[in-house]
Every structure is written in C-alpha cells, then in structure tokens.
C-alpha cells in the first residue's frame, strides 16, 4: 500500500470550484458577464466572443497569490494553504467574498479590458454574440493534471456552446484558444467549432478593411508574446500586424521574442508564488531593457504576473494589454476624424 502523494491544496480549490461553479474562482455568472452591461450584444449567434472568465478572475487569483505570498514559506506557507482550504472548504463559495474587496481596483481594470475587447470588435464591424452564463475553458484543469475533471467539464462547455448555436469562437485568451484547439479534441467528442484567437480576428479585420488606427501621441512599446500563443499555437505574426496598423506606435522587440519568448512566471503562482515572482522579475527586466515605455501583453495572467513583478522589483515599465492600445488607437482615431 502506498500513502497518498502530496499535491498542493490550492490546486484542489481550482478543481472543485470549476466543477461546482463553472470557473476556478467560483465567480457568479453576473460577475463574469458584467463587462457586457449596456453593450447590447446578442446572447445567441454563430460567432461568439468567448472570455472563459479569465480576465474576470485574474484579480481574484492575484489576491489569492498575495495571501499565499504573505504567509511565510515553509510551515507558514503550507498552513496558509490549509487555512484557505478550510475557509473555502465549503465548496469554495466564499472565495469571491473573501478576496473580492482586496481586488476591487484590479477587478475593474480587467473587466474594462474585456469591455474594450468587445467594443473594439464592434468598432471594427465584427458581429458577435456572448454567453451570459459562460463556463471557464478548463485550461487550468489540464495544466494541473485533473484530466477526469476536464473531461467532465469539457462536456458541459461543448453542450453550452451547442445550445447557444455557436459555430465560431473568438477566443479572447491564449489559454482558451490553446485548450480548445489542441486539448479538447483529445478529451471530448463533438467539439467541431472553429476557434480563432482574438488577436487573429483583429489582424484579419484590419488587413481586410485597410483601416488605419493612430495614437494621438507617439509611443514606444515592446511585446511580450504569451507562451501558449507563440509556441503552442505558433501565432506570432498577428500581434505584430495589429501593432503595425497603428500609427505613432513603435515596436521595439526584446531579444527573446516570438517562439523564443520567456515565461512571465504566472504558471507557478499558485504552487510556488515566490518563484513565480522571480521568473516574472527577470522577464520585466528584459522587457524594460528595450527602453520601451510599455510592455504589451495578450494574456491576463501574463499581465497580472508581470505587473506584480515590475512593482516588487521596482522595474520601470508599464504593463499594458494589447487590447487597451488598440482601443485607445481606435478612440484617438475617431476623435480626430
């Protein structure tokens, strides 16, 4: 007989929350879909903007990491996990309540990015719907090895998409694009949807429409390619095509870009938060080394981890989502014309 192997308790929180509440942080549906308030986006349609609740839960994950980090590592570190598990033990329902207030400002920041993502599609005349009771993709279940959990969850996701009459998914985040394209076919039957990463949708539309965007003042940025997009899905040209379409914007590449991009540290955050921060710190130093005023990200977890790393290691570079810049360029353009 073998005793049970040890696995980090935070992972179990992610797993049980996803199974019971549809997403890892046990967010309520209205919290996940509040970005759509007042935008008049249809709730049924062939093409949907799929957020996977990822941006929406980023602030909560950050708060959770903050708690894990404050607890000193070693005994304290692990007892903090234990304490959290006790609190969240009752199906994890309280997580949002516990961390919601801490995450107030960040919460707004990430909700705004989703809102701008939707508004950007609208401004570019792309028709899309959304699901107001959207389920998370399950990427973290795969990440942490909960294959059985993913199999069950994926079935629910597929049937939700079918019920909504979807045949094309604009995947807002790299994690959801990757898991849909590469993992779902191995885990679930009937996943016959076209999956287009958000940035590809933008690149394609900008190219076809020939639309020019511009910023009202010159800006130099660098680009942090997300691992799951650049390496796993080999998508590296599209973000650059989008940036090229923006006047007054100069892209300064880091030495390690495209498929040679470097991890932001986020994947380790729930198990090894200190390590995660050190990895992030290295990456922000590289990004800052370009001399750019901002580093653009395409993934909410990259955004959160690099922002945190820049703050704690006192690296002077702003971390900005690419969506923010595109939205700003569209606004500036409109303001002028």
């Amino acid at each position: 007989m073998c005793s049970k192997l040890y696995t980090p308790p935070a992972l179990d929180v992610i797993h049980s929350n996803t199974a019971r509440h549809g997403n890892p942080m046990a967010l309520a549906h209205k919290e996940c879909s509040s970005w759509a308030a007042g935008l008049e986006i249809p709730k049924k349609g062939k093409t949907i903007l799929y957020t996977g609740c990822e941006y929406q839960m980023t602030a909560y994950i950050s708060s959770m990491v903050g708690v894990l980090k404050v607890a000193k590592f070693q005994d304290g570190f692990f007892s903090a996990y234990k304490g959290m598990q006790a609190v969240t033990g009752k199906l994890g329902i309280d997580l949002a309540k516990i961390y919601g207030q801490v995450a107030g400002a960040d919460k707004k920041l990430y909700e705004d990015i989703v809102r701008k993502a939707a508004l950007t599609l609208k401004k570019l005349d792309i028709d899309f719907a959304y699901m107001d009771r959207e389920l998370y993709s399950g990427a973290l279940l795969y990440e942490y090895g909960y294959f059985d959990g993913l199999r069950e969850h994926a079935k629910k996701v597929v049937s939700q998409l079918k019920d909504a009459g979807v045949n094309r998914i604009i995947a807002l985040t790299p994690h959801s694009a990757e898991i849909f394209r590469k993992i779902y076919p191995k885990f679930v039957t009937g996943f016959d949807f076209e999956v287009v990463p958000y940035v590809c949708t933008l690149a394609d539309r900008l190219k076809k429409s020939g639309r020019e965007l511009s910023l009202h003042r010159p800006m130099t940025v660098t680009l942090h390619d997300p691992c799951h997009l650049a390496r796993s899905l080999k998508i590296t040209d599209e973000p650059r095509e989008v940036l090229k379409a923006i006047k007054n914007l100069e892209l300064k590449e880091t030495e390690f870009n495209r498929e040679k991009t470097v991890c932001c540290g986020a994947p380790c955050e729930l198990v090894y938060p200190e390590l995660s921060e050190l990895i992030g710190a290295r990456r922000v130093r590289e990004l800052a080394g370009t001399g750019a005023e901002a580093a653009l990200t395409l993934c909410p977890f990259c955004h959160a981890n690099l922002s945190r790393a820049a703050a704690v290691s006192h690296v002077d570079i702003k971390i900005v989502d690419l969506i923010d810049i595109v939205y700003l360029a569209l606004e500036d353009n409109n303001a002028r014309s």
Partner: protein
Amino acid sequence: MPDHKKVFQDYYSGLLVSACDPKLEIGLARSVKAYRERRSKTLKRFPKTIELAKEVRLIKEESANRREELVKIAKENLESNGAKVHLAKTADDALKIIDGIVGTGKVLVSAKTLTGEEVELREHLESRGNEVWETDIGQFIQQLRKEKPMHYVLPSLHVSREEVAGLLTKFFGKEIEPDIATEVRTIREFLREKYFKADFGLSGGNVVAADTGTIVLIENEGNIRMSTNVPPVHIALIGIDKIVPTFEDAIKVAEVTWRYAGFAIPFYLNLISAPSGTADIENTLVYGSSGPLELHVIFLDNGRSALAKDPVLKEATYCIKCGGCLLECPVFQLTAGNYGGRSYFGGVGTILSAYVADGMSAAAGIAYSCARCGRCVEECPLSIDAPGLIAELRHRILKNEQVKT
C-alpha cells in the same frame, strides 16, 4: 515510506534557497551567456545538425520500441567482442554487480556518469571503503562541494571561478588564484597520478550501438580516455535507453548530442567495443594489451523498459541529455539542477526522476515547479513535448500512481 508532504516542502525550500543565492546567480548567468554564444555559433557552422536531429528522433523512437531486443543484441555483440556484460534490473542489482567486481579498499577513477549518480554509485563505493575520484573537472568540483551535479554536460555550471578558487584553496591547503586556467591546471595535476593508482575506471556511455557493441563517449577533457584506458579494469554503467540499433545510428545520436550541448567538434570521441587486445603474435588474439585487461558493461533497466512501453511518457526516454533545454528554462536559470532530482533535471528530467531515479514522491514537487511554458521544446533537438509530459505526470500524481517508494 516517505513523508510525501515533507519531501515536497524540502524540495521547495531547496528551490527557493537556490533561486535567492546571489553566488549561484553569478555562476549561472555566466554559463548561460557562454552557452548561448557557443551553441548559436555551432549550429551556424553545422546547420545540417538540425536536420540530423529529426533523424535522431526517429532512431530513438525505434529504439524505444525495440528496447528488449536491442539489449539482447548489444549484449551478444559486446560478449563476442570480449567484454563481460551484466544486466541489472534495479539500482540495487547494479550496485551488487559492481561490488562483486570491485570489492573493498580499492581506488577508482570515475568519468562523469549520470547513471552512476542515479544509483549513487560513488557514495556506495566509498561507504564500502573504496577511494573514488571524479575526473571530470565540473564533477570533481561537485564532489568537493558535496553536491549532486547541476547539469548533464556542465555539472558545476552554477559555480563561479571565485568560488572554485576558494574551494581549491581549502582542499589543497594553498592559495589558488580565481583564474580558470590555474584552477584547471591544479586539478589536472592532482588527478593525473590518480589514474595510474586506480584499480578501476568507471564510466557511463552517451550512446551504444547494438550491432557492434560499441560504447560511444563524447568528451573534451581527456578524462574519459584516461579513466577508461589507464586502469586495468574498465566498468561502464549504462542505462538501456542509450542503446540504438546500429553503429551509424550511434554516431548520429552522438553528433547531435555534442552539437546541441554547444560543441562544434568534441576534442575526443571514444569508441569502446572491447577490452584492449592484440593478435600481433601469431595472429592469435589475446585480451589485455596496453589498455584495460577487462571491460565490464552493466546495462541498467531501473524502470526504463516499463517507461519505454508507456504510451505517453515513453517520449522521455528519447532524451539524449545534451542539456540544451536546461539553459533556456526559466526555472533552471534561477535554480540550476536544484530544479530536478538526483541526476535528471528540468521538465523531461522530471519524468526520468519519477520513473527511473527518484520515485514519485520526490517527483511530485519537481513536477509542479515546471511552468509548462514550452521554452525547452524549442531548444530540444528531438522536440520532446515536456509540457505535455508534465501535464500527464501531474495527472498520474493525482491518481496516486507510484512506481517506487
């Protein structure tokens, strides 16, 4: 039975301590920088290596599928060449076989061997009253530091010249300047006399050709030539995953190994198929000429054949240990070989730690320290899908699959 939680915690402590060690940071940063320059020059000079690597992937796939057959063929051919071949199912079996050959109170020189690290060979031999000297410069440094190797090709890549100087000053009892050439010269002088005193020479093998029974050993230092040739008996401890079908295959695997390790041309390439021998008198072959009188080859399984049959994780047995993945890994760049088990490191190494070297309990912590960022796949000549393997391993950990305790 291991306390799984404590094993996990201890691993994390070690990882964090190393990640916050400024000395390690200096040594590692210099090694990474030098590696990047060397490897990029190497692949520019020999661009065909990139194509050859694809062929090597196929060779390793075929070898994994023919594992048992290849062990048998390699054994037969080595025996007909005049070597003594031993098959070891477990680490303990390997140690017993070596005990039977070595006995106690002997002097041994060891060329760096990961398989030796896997079974803790040096510690075992020392505990039985033998004197063992590591002859690879990096591994010698690690021996003095009482630390495991921290990389496949560069065991002490995290140790700066300043630290080496301090270590040698203490060991030799005289002031050694922090100058790399001086340091190497000092170690050289110490080791040279050991080769001639040694009763046995130990080595591993980078790759083995089944059809000729040839062990290929890649090196720059000359320590492998000395260790395998000067002492009267050469003992090679080799994992069965190193056996490939043909001599041509073996050379291809070796070439890709040294190129991706960052070397354009290895200073020496050793091909060992038998103990030394001569037929100079009456054209009649006798063994034991200028080189070793005996060659013992121990093929170690230790979980490898089971792993080679695993539908998903068998990919880990393709690893040729060039170490290229490690130097670009974001976790390794902070922690060196602390991100790994006793002898295998990084993402792919975690699978080998789990099923070959260290067991599941130890591998659990390692498995969760991988970022699954996939940077290693870009560097791997065989494009081994470490992120996929790690996800699968985590799944097995959650299922409480335990092969060793």
